[in-house]
């Protein structure tokens, strides 16, 4: 059941399904004929293009040109990435992917970190995000939050403590 506000919001934007139906073949064909990618890869790239289009739909003036630009750039980017990939030598082809060796230990840690992040106040979300996800130095965090480096350091420490306390509490409640 959707309310009147939602109904209005949905009706105001272009129907992405219709745009997809109208242009999909052309875009898949372009990726295959111009860049020589496989049909499966072309379909995946076209899907990404339409996902990007959903957010941009209200800004795009010439839909076909925009979609064409997006699929060409997406395919070139994909080919650049693929060109960097190097085939595995036959002697290690049966070896497990090093990235997945510690997956059983790493995955719970990552999930815990995400859960932990979700427990925080917005101020702490931002402070820790800047410091640890974006790699801001403490003076840069201070500049972003319009405070002194000393206070920014204090805030980061307090937020880490908040993360620890709230996650512990959540664990105890389970």
């Amino acid at each position, binding site marked *: 059941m*959707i*309310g009147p*506000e*939602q109904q*209005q*919001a*949905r009706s105001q*934007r272009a*129907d*992405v*399904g219709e745009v*997809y*139906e109208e242009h*999909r073949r052309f875009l898949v064909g372009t990726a295959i004929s111009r860049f020589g990618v496989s049909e499966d890869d072309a*379909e995946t*790239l076209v*899907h*990404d*293009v*339409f*996902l*990007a289009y*959903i*957010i*941009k*739909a209200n800004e795009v*003036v*010439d839909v076909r*040109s*925009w979609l064409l*630009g*997006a*699929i*060409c*750039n*997406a*395919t*070139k*980017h*994909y080919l650049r990435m693929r060109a960097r990939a190097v085939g595995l030598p036959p002697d290690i082809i049966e070896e497990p992917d090093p990235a997945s060796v510690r997956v059983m230990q790493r995955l719970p840690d990552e999930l815990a970190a*995400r859960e932990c*992040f*979700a427990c*925080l*106040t*917005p*101020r702490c*979300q*931002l402070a820790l*995000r800047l410091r640890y*996800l*974006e790699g*801001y130095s403490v003076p*840069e965090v201070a*500049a*972003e939050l319009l405070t002194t480096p000393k206070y920014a350091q204090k805030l980061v420490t307090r937020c880490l403590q908040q993360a620890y306390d709230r996650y512990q509490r959540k664990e105890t409640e389970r």
Partner: protein
Amino acid sequence: MKSAQDSLRLIADRLADERAAARSVVATLRTSLDAAWDRALPEAWRTLGFVQELTSVSDSVLEQNPAQSRALAQFALAVAAAVPRADYPAITIAQVEGHAWKALGTAHRYLSAYDAALRAYDAARRCFAAFGALADEEAAVDLATAVVFSEIGRFDEALALIEQSAATFASFRDEQRVVQGTLLKGMIHHRRGDLRAARIAYESALMSAQERDDLHTLAAIHNNLGQVLIELNETSAAADALARARDLFAGLEMPAEVGRTEGALARLLLHNGAYERAIALLQRVRQRFLALGMIDEAGLAALDMVDGLVATNDRAAALRLTETVLAEFRAARLERAIVALAYLQELLREHPSPAASIHHVRLYVEQLRSDPDRVFLPLPE
């Protein structure tokens, strides 16, 4: 293929519903954001639609209230960190987060915090660069970064980014952004003192912009063309261009830009010796900036008035106005500008012909916006 189409529709509907649900909450947050920073984030807010709505409001208040725009973009990033990653496609998360970073960078740029702006734009670029389908978004960040580079005098880097982004915009047939790049190129030539190259770039941008319905870019081009024509001594063409810019900005409800354009018109009147009209116009401009809380801009208008008052031998009024501005700068803690104004105050009391020093102080206060650490040095005797 039905399933791919359906999944796209589902995502589009979901984001539209989330934004619609966020609208009234975000409207309320505009006046209660301070309190929201230290409260737990409600579950219902942890959606990409909510982040989009915050970013959109941040963009819409930028011109009127850049500090609020910055706070909203920061809040959008805080909310984005709490959005469950598994609920959306990775490219959608990157795109929405990238928009929030870009909004933050632009708010910093409006507030002359250029290092912070560049850091935010870098973060936006990291979001977009992971997906080739977001190449136009990445190019838009490059263009925004070029604006910052041009503000801080890194002209060659700015020009390189404009060229690079223009190629991407052309591949999307995004004429509007190509024109914006040409306009910026003109501004860089202008700042470098290459007036003829600037004029050529502005006129080329004007031709393209006139074919489109992009009033904001058109207004900016007329404004810049007007400024360059003043320096080329083509005063009547300059007045026409500035008047068009002012009318367009007024129609777009951009009070700060209207103020800046009227300030340029007033300087043109000063240049032509129409002192009384210039002073009356500058007084209006000054009040406009004071109402917007833009103390440095209001100070610049006052310094132009001081110039006009001295030219009409009203030294006492010039001195009173300088003292008023000095008090405003002190209240706003514009430390370096205070030094320059105090120097001017002394000079107006004693110096027989202070015009050159007034221009020197005005230029210094103007330069402080892009170079806040610049040290004031009086003109040599």
